């Protein structure tokens, strides 16, 4: 299936195809995502558990939930969600990511439906999900509002959208571009374009315009002394995440 949408930026896709094989190396090009992953997963799992009344200490707590991971990449979030029992569709507009994700899931003993498609195509096909993950994606799309509208259509009534991105201010420029790309070389130069970053207020506007209700927002904060990420209720200056629900 070919991506026929309008919001995918072709130059962005080529960048990620080049990196696809590196997805699962904890010390490779995606090291920052691997480092951020426990923190993202803590937020995602606690929000899903709260919204759908699930006990994370129980086996396969997300059994029965249909979940879409948009911009799934190598499957860094799709695999944990499948392991927790969710029925997962991983969608990526970069075709090169999908073989990597499929092979890795198979070797990990996980069944995940990886598709080369875009949010808009899935929405047009009438697919619906209990949970839509839209993590570190919206800053890479050409039409954020069109993309958010598609996410809204993809949710079942009562469904949950989790969306994370990077704030736009001098601190985020220093951290994400000067720090992560130029100094630490954590990310290849040009991974991010600062003018595509979105402030929390702008994101709330996108979410509300799409017809969803924002219910929570938190920051992901990197502590250079502990060399790890944590969730902050106040500091949304760089990386942050939001939870929104679609009315029943």
């Amino acid at each position, binding site marked *: 299936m070919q991506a026929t949408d309008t919001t995918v930026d072709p130059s962005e896709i080529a960048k990620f195809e080049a990196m696809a094989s590196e997805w699962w190396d904890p010390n490779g090009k995606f090291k920052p995502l691997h480092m951020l992953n426990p923190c993202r997963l803590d937020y995602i799992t606690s929000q899903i558990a709260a919204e759908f009344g699930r006990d994370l200490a129980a086996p396969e707590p997300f059994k029965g939930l249909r979940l879409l991971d948009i911009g799934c990449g190598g499957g860094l979030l799709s695999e944990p969600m499948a*392991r927790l029992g969710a029925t997962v569709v991983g969608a990526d507009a970069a075709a090169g990511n999908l073989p990597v994700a499929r092979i890795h899931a198979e070797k990990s003993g996980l069944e995940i439906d990886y598709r080369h498609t875009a949010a808009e195509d899935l929405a047009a096909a009438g697919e619906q999900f209990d949970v839509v993950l839209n993590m570190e994606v919206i800053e890479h799309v050409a039409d954020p509002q069109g993309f958010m509208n598609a996410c809204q259509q993809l949710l079942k009534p009562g469904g949950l959208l989790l969306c994370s991105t990077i704030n736009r201010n001098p601190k985020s420029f220093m951290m994400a571009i000067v720090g992560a790309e130029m100094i630490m070389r954590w990310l290849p130069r040009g991974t991010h374009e600062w003018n595509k970053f979105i402030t929390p207020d702008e994101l709330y506007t996108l979410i509300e315009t799409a017809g969803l209700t924002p219910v929570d927002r938190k920051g992901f904060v990197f502590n250079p002394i502990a060399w790890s990420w944590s969730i902050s209720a106040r500091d949304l200056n760089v990386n942050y995440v939001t939870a929104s629900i679609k009315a029943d």
Partner: protein
Amino acid sequence: MAYDSEILIVGGGLNGPALALALADAGLSVTVIDRLDTATLIERDFDGRGYALALSSMRLLSAIGVWTAVAQKAEPILEVKVTDGRVGEAPSPFMLEFDHSEIEEGPMGYMLEDRHLRRAFLAAMDAHANITQINDTVVDQEIDEFGARVILASGKVLSARVLTGCDGRSSGTAERAGIKRTGWGYEQTALVCAIAHEKPHHGVAHQYFMPSGPLAILPLPGNRASIVWTESAANAARIQALADEDYLAVLRPRFGTFLGDISLAGQRFTYPLALTLAYAFVAPRLALVGDAAHGMHPIAGQGLNAGLKDVAALAQVLVDAMRRGEDFGRIDVLERYQSWRRFDTASLALATDAFNRLFSNDNPILRLGRDLGMGLVNAVPGLRRGAIREAAGLSGELPRLLTGRPV
């Protein structure tokens, strides 16, 4: 990929069963492999060995459901007296006294005999549906990106997401993984035995720092105590070769008369003292626990306590990762355990080492210095409370199990 069990534990001593129970309680399937069969492990009669369990270790045992089986057999340590001494001399005037009433948590720890703890562990593992025990020897292991396999002497092959080495200071699991170790011997040997004494000990543990090495007198139930007595390797060999009555004749002047006459109440053991530290505590799909990662000088009785801290930290790292859906055998997950425990254990190993070098010495200046040092620690309540909390295992960022909560 299907695994025979999610966790493989090599070594069914004390840390292995503790880890197995903690993980099995959280819903993971665990296989424990030990060379000795359970009958051999529990057949042992009282052999005089005991453990000074820190309060945090007792809480871990409670959390994994083992404490109730041994609580009646454990002797609370209500006070610890540390003294600089010389054979046949009165104790030096500066004495460290740690009293449990200075911390709010109750007794400072418990003395528990090896036989009771082992039996309780084995019974708890037998009763646990998620634990399989195998009596066999590991002859080889293989690790790839997605799992670990061990090959047993019987020819059987077992696979798991994570392989944990709880197999002691000469860990085969570490060696097969190519993890090197560093360490050194001390030319010292610990003589270990249980004694019966005339007068009650009132729950007081004593540690005498003698020129040849420390002597610990640790209260057991009744009028009995566990003795850990360190001598130079040559002296220890001579003392161990003596007949029981002559052995006691050497011990008496070191021991003093405060508990009345003493007699042997079990077998006599010797343990050569050596420090060993693995260069890494983890590798992909592999984690080392307890002495397999770090064996230290046992003067502070911290060996088992440090091992149980490893158990609590590793169990929490694995279970937290499982609950967020991570593949918990990946190196980036296991490194969280390593960074949590490595600094702590390395600094404890080196501190106990420095402590031993300072105290196993007859240099008058060092003696004066440490006497003054002890007086100072004693005179400043904050310092003393800090030392008590450290010895009781209550300082640092504690894993949930060490506070008595489930993992």
